[in-house]
């Protein structure tokens, strides 16, 4: 795949005419997707796809076109040549773009993370064996992910990441389940077995009678998986330069000083320690770290090239959506082993689900508890809880009601596979809250 990318990149560069800059973004995957339900296979799918986005810049104008590639060198060259002809027609008709910003100083990078991703047969055997006698439902996605950038100024960026993500639930009954994930670049049977064993242990707790909670405030512990949903909401327009400048960010109360998070809350786009590429689709190389929330206060915004030009600041290699891809929430002091003891009496939230803003301007969130969430008393898990809706402000969750963050953090791969697999991730601690508002 790498050779194919560099061959096509060189070919496209050779097509550039006088006064033209041509940029290319390449994304490809060779993936296995295997769905399980009731400890059997529901669907097994193999996907091979490659997509090339061509950008033509001429006379201060820009047009983009994307297309799937076949993988055949000759056919793909022909296709890119035809795309370029289409773009040349289009760019002549396009208005000048005052916010055009492209990578003019070539910076070449390369990163290869070749792993040992299992064959589909290994995954199916392991999952069905582990799920025997249980109700296992889950999804495995794995294989190499390739990404590249090239432009006619000679820049070349390349990344290959081999990884897999297996997320599964062991169901007790109806909506009572334990959710577990195993992800990485090298499948280890012992590691998988250990995680499955932990899930089986938690499953036993779900057999106890469920506790129905009344709406109200509760002490709560949000696991790193639950925190992924909370922090994920902040990413929905929260950190982008455009959303902040147009007053649409849910963090406007931070921006204008009306509110702040707890001083222990520091959030960064930590490209240096994430899995996402160190370059963005338009070829800008990302700094290793951009602090988005600094000790509870608003830090730097994620500035895409377009927003950077519009608002007259430097880009920091953000994607067009200005959404973090390698988010990092600083660790706290609470040892993970002491979470239940510190919680004492309240709810242990293993997962949250389907979050949205109930008042975006106030960063007020709503969502549901899901999967393994438990009632804790005397520092011990007593029983599962029936699912509950919460409606609470992020300024309380990460601010006034934040009692502690855990010392240990989890690296959570963003399992989203819309259109294609991706390399986004979050590194998060759990959070102990003095009060968490349940409403239904």
């Amino acid at each position, binding site marked *: 795949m790498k050779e194919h990318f560099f061959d096509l990149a060189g070919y496209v560069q050779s097509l550039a005419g006088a006064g033209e800059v041509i940029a290319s973004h390449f994304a490809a995957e060779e993936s296995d997707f295997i769905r399980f339900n009731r400890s059997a296979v529901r669907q097994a799918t*193999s996907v091979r796809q490659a997509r090339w986005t061509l950008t033509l810049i001429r006379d201060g104008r820009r047009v983009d076109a994307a297309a*799937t590639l076949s993988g055949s060198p000759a056919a793909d060259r022909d296709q890119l040549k035809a795309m370029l002809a289409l773009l040349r027609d289009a760019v002549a008709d396009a208005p000048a773009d005052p916010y055009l910003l492209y990578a003019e100083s070539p910076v070449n990078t390369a990163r290869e993370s070749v792993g040992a991703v299992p064959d589909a047969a290994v995954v199916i055997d392991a999952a069905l064996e582990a799920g025997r006698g249980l109700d296992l439902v889950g999804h495995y996605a794995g294989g190499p992910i390739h990404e590249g950038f090239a432009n006619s100024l000679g820049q070349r960026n390349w990344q290959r990441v081999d990884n897999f993500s297996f997320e599964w639930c062991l169901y007790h009954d109806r909506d009572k389940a334990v959710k577990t994930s195993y992800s990485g670049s090298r499948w280890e049977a012992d590691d998988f077995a250990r995680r499955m064993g932990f899930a089986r242990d938690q499953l036993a707790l779900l057999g106890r009678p469920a506790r129905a909670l009344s709406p109200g405030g509760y002490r709560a512990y949000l696991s790193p998986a639950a925190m992924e949903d909370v922090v994920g909401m902040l990413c929905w327009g929260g950190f982008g330069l455009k959303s902040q400048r147009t007053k649409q960010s849910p963090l406007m109360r931070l921006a204008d000083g009306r509110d702040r998070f707890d001083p222990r809350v520091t959030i960064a786009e930590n490209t240096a320690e994430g899995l996402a590429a160190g370059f963005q689709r338009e070829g800008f190389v990302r700094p290793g770290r951009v602090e988005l929330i600094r000790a509870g206060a608003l830090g730097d915004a994620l500035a895409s090239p377009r927003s950077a030009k519009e608002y007259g600041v430097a880009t920091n290699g953000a994607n067009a959506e200005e959404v973090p891809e390698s988010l990092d929430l600083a660790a706290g002091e609470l040892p993970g082993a002491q979470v239940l003891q510190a919680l004492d009496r309240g709810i242990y939230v293993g997962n949250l689900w*389907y979050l949205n803003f109930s008042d975006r301007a106030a960063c007020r969130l709503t969502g*549901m508890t*899901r999967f393994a969430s438990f009632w804790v008393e005397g520092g011990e898990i007593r029983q599962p809880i029936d699912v509950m*809706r919460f409606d609470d402000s992020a300024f309380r969750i990460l601010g006034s009601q934040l009692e502690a963050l855990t010392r240990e953090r989890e690296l959570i791969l963003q399992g989203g596979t819309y259109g294609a*697999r991706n390399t986004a991730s979050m590194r998060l601690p759990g959070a102990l809250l003095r009060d968490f508002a349940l409403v*239904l």
Partner: protein
Amino acid sequence: MIETLAREFRAVAPAVDFCALRFMEETSEILTVRQDVPEPPQLATDRGAMVTVIDKGGLGYAATSDLTPAGLREAAMRAKRLAALTAGRAVTDYGRIAMPRPAGRFATAVADDPARLTRREKVELLAAEARQCRIDPRIVDWEANLWTTRTRAAYVTADGGEVEQEFHFLVPNMSATAHADGITQTRTHGGRGNGFCRQGGLEVLDAFGLAGSGRAVAEGALELLAAPNCPTGKMDVLLMPDQMMLQIHESIGHPLELDRILGDERNFAGTSFVTLDMFGTYRYGSELLDVTFDPARPGEYASYGWDDDGLAAERQFLIRRGILERPLGGAVSQARAGIAGVANTRSCAWNRPPIDRMANLNIEPGASSLEELVAGIEHGVMMRTNVSWSIDDSRNKFQFGCEWGRMIRGGRLAEVVRNPNYRGISATFWRSLTGVGDAATVEVLGTPFCGKGEPNQAIRVGHASPACRFAGVEVFGGAA
């Protein structure tokens, strides 16, 4: 091209119990004018095919963008291997399911060819309307979009089935955001999530009402800026179609998906409070509730002739006079559950396997005019345009919010309110339906982004609905 592809596929199809090829090609264009500045046009072509193999009870899918005979053969071998790996270890014996062998052609009716206007003319049309948003310095952002897509699809079975379908989609949108004194409010025409989405040509722009929409959204955003927060309390709500589409989608559509009921989605999208024993007897809503699966409605966003397993699509009642009749389940799910469903096995693209989806899911119009619906409310709120949605994984406890609300007192419309939200429980909410608007209140909407499935799929669905009135709903507003 389709004839050639079908011939070449059949020449390389392996000797298995069942083999099919699903081809899809989408060509799209997204035009945006933001704050009077046209953004670079986004053009895309997505083309590829998926091979399905059923053999000895196993099922395998393989997708490829290499449509040469060698590429198709290689994909067929990958699918065959996966079928072999799953044989005897799958959720059902897929070999026992009678897969359709369809024949025919479907095409979107296009009255006004989108190609009649050049790209520059379309951009100028958007720019002219967007300029009308600039009516007040408190308008801090505004944007006009037009997203057009042409999709060619074919489904070919190795044993002679062959269907061709061609779709034209058009999705316009207009939005404006106002800000003052720490308050930000956005008003859209077409919805936050592209709720106005149709099949057709440029005639869709007329139905959308592009002319005048720029000024209307700007005025709407300023109106919300000046409005008080929606009050809190139990009251009647009158949901207009651009909120009803979300209410239908989340608390009728998803719970009735048969694959959810069978448990396939429990690791991701969730399960359902609906169980198989409820069909035929369960009272889902009041006597006023009639819900149809209608893939034949011209112009609605998810109209089609056949689903992606080749099952011919036809209109069916899912809920009639409030009683649950039929789930949203295609050929495979119907066979697994032993219950009749509809032709709704769909995939969002050539690289994703088909699963049970909604397609067009509509509420049938009732007998009440909008004035009568309003007159029947002593204390309540009218809500328009979904902005927030959240529901539990059984599709029961929900909380939804809208862009715009207007109080109703003593049967009369009163002041506009901002941040109107409401919450409830699906299993009881629909039984509180006390009024269904007549055909004059119906709007044909939908969403391009219904998310579900592993691997994830965002698919097009349509929702046509009249205005509907519900009694005794928990309503609340935003933070002070």
